[in-house]
């Protein structure tokens, strides 16, 4: 367990340092989880406390990039919530491919690639991988390198495989690994993600890509406070095309946000929303 606990004042100091030095604003991140991320970063980097973290953050771009990688929790699972992936495969993805040429799919959530790999596998299984444009957001260059490496921690295979089976996919989970699933990290077939475009974001998604048909933004707003949830979801709303879709995590909601009246609920259990026309 964590031997060091960061206080609220120290957390605010870290946030201010980052804003002043790099222009990234974490001021409206949800406090409890953000504090835990900072504690983890302090611990794993062998720092003593918040002051040590601040000293390291100042004038060290390389460290800051690694900070950006660690400040957002990893998704840790492929095909999380299998009913959603079945719905995407059987309904949403075929529809958006039918209704437009090379529709843009945006993975807004910042994670370690699991959502992207799951999406690409799903698309490949319905022969639609080359019929869409996939954009994947990132905060940290290190994360992009990691995602492009296509390495999956072998400890995650069991959960990933179980999820994949619940999706009723047409292959076996193991079929997607170039070198099998033996000891050591396994590599997902890199061809799956070769046409993905990576788009840099800041901490508050100030500049999302436009003309989006489907935005996957699951389990990202849980790391924001309600003010930032409102702002970011409204920004997403603006870039999603009429008739396009927004998918949130199953415990996230548009209810009580200003973006709510722009959408209808397509699937309440899987939190799939559809942007109204006009």
């Amino acid at each position: 367990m964590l031997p060091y606990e960061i206080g609220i004042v120290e957390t605010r100091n870290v946030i201010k340092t980052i804003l002043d030095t790099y222009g990234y604003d974490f001021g409206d991140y949800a406090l409890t989880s953000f504090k835990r991320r900072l504690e983890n970063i302090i611990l794993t980097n062998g720092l003593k406390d918040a002051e040590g973290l601040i000293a390291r953050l100042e004038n060290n771009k390389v460290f800051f990039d690694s900070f950006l990688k660690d400040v957002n929790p990893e998704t840790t699972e492929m095909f999380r919530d299998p009913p959603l992936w079945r719905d995407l495969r059987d309904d949403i993805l075929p529809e958006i491919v039918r209704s437009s040429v090379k529709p843009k799919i945006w993975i807004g959530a910042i994670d370690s690639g699991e959502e992207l790999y799951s999406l690409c596998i799903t698309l490949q299984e319905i022969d639609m991988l080359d019929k869409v444009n996939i954009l994947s957001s990132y905060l940290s260059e290190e994360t992009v390198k990691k995602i492009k490496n296509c390495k999956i921690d072998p400890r995650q295979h069991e959960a990933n495989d179980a999820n994949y089976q619940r999706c009723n996919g047409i292959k076996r989970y193991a079929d997607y690994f170039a070198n099998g699933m033996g000891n050591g990290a396994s590599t997902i077939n890199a061809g799956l993600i070769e046409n993905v475009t990576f788009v840099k974001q800041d901490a508050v998604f100030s500049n999302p890509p436009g003309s989006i048909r489907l935005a996957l933004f699951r389990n990202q707003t849980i790391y924001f406070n309600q003010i930032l949830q409102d702002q970011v979801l409204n920004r997403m709303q603006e870039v999603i095309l009429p008739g396009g879709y927004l998918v949130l995590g199953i415990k996230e909601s548009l209810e009580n946000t200003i973006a709510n009246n722009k959408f209808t609920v397509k699937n309440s259990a899987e939190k799939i929303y559809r942007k109204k026309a006009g």
Partner: protein
Amino acid sequence: MYKAVIIGGSAGSFQIIIRILSSLPANFPLPLLLCLHRLKHVRSGFVEALSIKSSIPIIEPDDKEQIKPGRAYLAPANYHMFIELGNRIALSTEESVNHSRPSIDLSFITAAQVYREKLVGVILSGANKDGAYGLKKVSDLGGVTIVQDPNECQVKTMTESALKMTKVHHVFSPTEIVRFLQKINK
């Protein structure tokens, strides 16, 4: 006066949770926070099972849901459940702790940081050591700590780990836990 009760349990705790829920009145004066180990991929059914005999409404909260008295908040499958300043639930998909998501430790630590001496923490039967460190935080920050008597647990590991780490206020049988909660804030 206490502000919240948090209960952690795993293998062997289900019947006791049912008993606690069925013994408390609908106007129970505090929120009950429940962090129980459960299958990651089974999203539904648990609330329904717990609700059958409960007068208290049981909720699997959405993120940032306001915490209210007289309700039980069950940590959702495959999320950690934190207590956030402002008396709200905050969820997280960060890595498992003690092989668990939800992790009892994380719910207890964050509840202790918010409610401090106004928190009652209860550890029930279970098969791993999750919750032991969390209960220590409840104790360190001035809250009341209760552990189910290991001799009455179906699986003792969790309660014994908690007792090893913390000098708790009460080691109770299920009947005594129910009695304590029925008299709380009276």
